[in-house]
């Protein structure tokens, strides 16, 4: 452990000096105000209306959509679940969309779990190994009197640290930036969680309110888990593929394919064993129906853990055995 720490320090500094993290922060600083502005415009357009009237209208509109015969059954299920959740908020006199920085952060994190956070993770993970091979610095690294597995372990630990940093930075920045427009309150606003989706019905017997700060903490934890899966897979690809560009493209393709599949593969049941379909862990917290019937939180965690474990094993086996010098 003691001789691992200098290695981790070395790796952390190498990533830092590549300025990738600055780019991530810059992207966030540009994107978050854009989303905040869009959200603000949306809030303004119906500002004069009471939120209860708006919510009731939304419920009615969903119910009208349900009575149409031409809508696919999965959409109906989703709408039905939405209706019951919104009704729950209305019955308990809680505004689910009250505009404040904490609510914005919750929404932003929720929407970034499938593509945005993985993309930023890839920016760092995809050239951890392949980048060194492109520049040739891998030779200097491996000619040192350190076992190869320790080198890779230090890279994996560094990656974990940066994944955490990315998620926390995203949350903090979206809170700080959106707060300029919406105000920095809303920490204790109640959020309902524990909706159990069974078929097309929602069981609300387990529903309980958590303060919004705790909800965001839970949400970030789940995002971290799925981001770690992406990171470890990217690390494996980065070991296997020599070019950084190829490694980013491979991972991006896999993730995008997963999001598309999640939207259309509800009748292809074995798709649920793909990692990318399981990335949206926060759905279980929100209580939205999973993309494929039969998916549960333990199932998704297991699938993601299995993919992570396999990619770790492959990475270590290949990295310790492979001829890195040419």
């Amino acid at each position, binding site marked *: 452990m003691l001789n691992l720490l200098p290695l981790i320090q070395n790796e952390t500094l190498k990533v830092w000096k590549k300025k990738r993290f600055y780019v991530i922060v810059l992207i966030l600083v540009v994107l978050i105000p854009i989303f905040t502005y869009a959200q603000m415009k949306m809030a303004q357009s119906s500002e004069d209306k009471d939120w209860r009237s708006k919510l*009731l209208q939304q419920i009615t509109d969903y119910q*009208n959509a349900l009575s149409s015969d031409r809508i696919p059954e999965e959409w109906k299920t989703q709408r039905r679940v939405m209706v019951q959740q919104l009704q729950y908020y209305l019955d308990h006199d809680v505004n689910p969309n009250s505009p404040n920085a904490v609510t914005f952060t919750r929404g932003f994190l929720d929407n970034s779990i499938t593509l945005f956070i993985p993309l930023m993770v890839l920016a760092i993970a995809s050239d951890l190994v392949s980048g060194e091979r492109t520049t040739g610095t891998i030779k200097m690294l491996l000619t040192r009197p350190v076992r190869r597995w320790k080198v890779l372990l230090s890279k994996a630990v560094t990656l974990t640290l940066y994944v955490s940093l990315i998620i926390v930075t995203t949350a903090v920045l979206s809170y700080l930036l959106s707060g300029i427009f919406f105000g920095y309150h809303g920490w204790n606003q109640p959020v309902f969680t524990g909706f159990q989706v069974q078929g097309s019905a929602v069981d609300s017997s387990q529903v*309980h309110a958590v303060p919004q700060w705790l909800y965001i903490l839970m949400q970030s934890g789940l995002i971290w888990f799925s981001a770690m899966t992406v990171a470890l897979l990217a690390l494996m690809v980065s070991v296997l593929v020599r070019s950084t560009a190829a490694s980013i493209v491979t991972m991006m393709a896999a993730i995008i394919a997963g999001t598309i599949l999640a939207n259309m593969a509800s009748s292809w049941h074995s798709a649920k064993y793909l990692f990318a379909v399981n990335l949206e862990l926060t759905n279980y917290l929100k209580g939205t129906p999973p993309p494929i019937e039969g998916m549960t939180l333990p199932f998704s965690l297991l699938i993601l853990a299995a993919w992570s474990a396999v990619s770790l094993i492959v990475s270590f086996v290949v990295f310790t055995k492979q001829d890195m010098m040419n």
Partner: protein
Amino acid sequence: MSSRKVWLAVGLVSLVSTLLLLAGFGYAVRDLLAPGASTPFRTAEPEPETSPVPAEGYRIVALGDSLTKGTGDATGEGYVKQAAALIEEASGEQVEIINNLAIGGMRADQLAERLQADKSFARALTQANLILLSIGGNDLFQFARTETGSGAAAIEPELAAKRLEEGLGRLSDVVERIREVNPDAKLVYIGLYNPFYDIPELRGGSLAVQDWNREAYRILNEQGNAILVPTSDLFEETIAFHLSSDHFHPNHAGYGKIAERLVQSLVP
């Protein structure tokens, strides 16, 4: 900044972040798998109504079935939005549609139950001073919900009489319930029409419709502060111009005519 300082800062912050996220992850998994541990939500006491009901202007809540929803109007306006625009034009006062709570296919018994059970419905109603209502069409023409069934089940006389009686009982419940929630608002009921007037063997349905409208008028008349807007004559000679392609709901022009009638009887 020296490398050592960067390492200390980045390393420490990211280590704390990792621990925090791990804690969040653990808590989330525990909360989702064994939710019994958390405390149930204490319902907040209803806050006092913040917006006092202004004396001027029209505040509309629309209730009922697909007719109020505006099904068949390609512009999506229906009679509610068209009427709101016309009222504003004719009276010069401010008109606000608070909610259009119509749901396609709703029957009078469902609406009565909804008004009874759903306090958010009742809450919306209390804010209105003009309530637009269309209900009963689905009670009387139950068969017409099927896509191809125009004429599949004609209104047989004895069946019609039974439906009429049942439906009117439900309508009476609905009107009573609305009055309980909001005794002061003006209630406007859109009369029924026979969408099959142009099919010779179904023209007799108009008699059932007239019976319905007469009885509906009696119910409204007993309550007071309520009017019935007749529509059946709009869908006789000119039915082809006023019905949409589903041959059941009005089209944009048909809704426009209903809206005109409504304004004629509301605004001097």
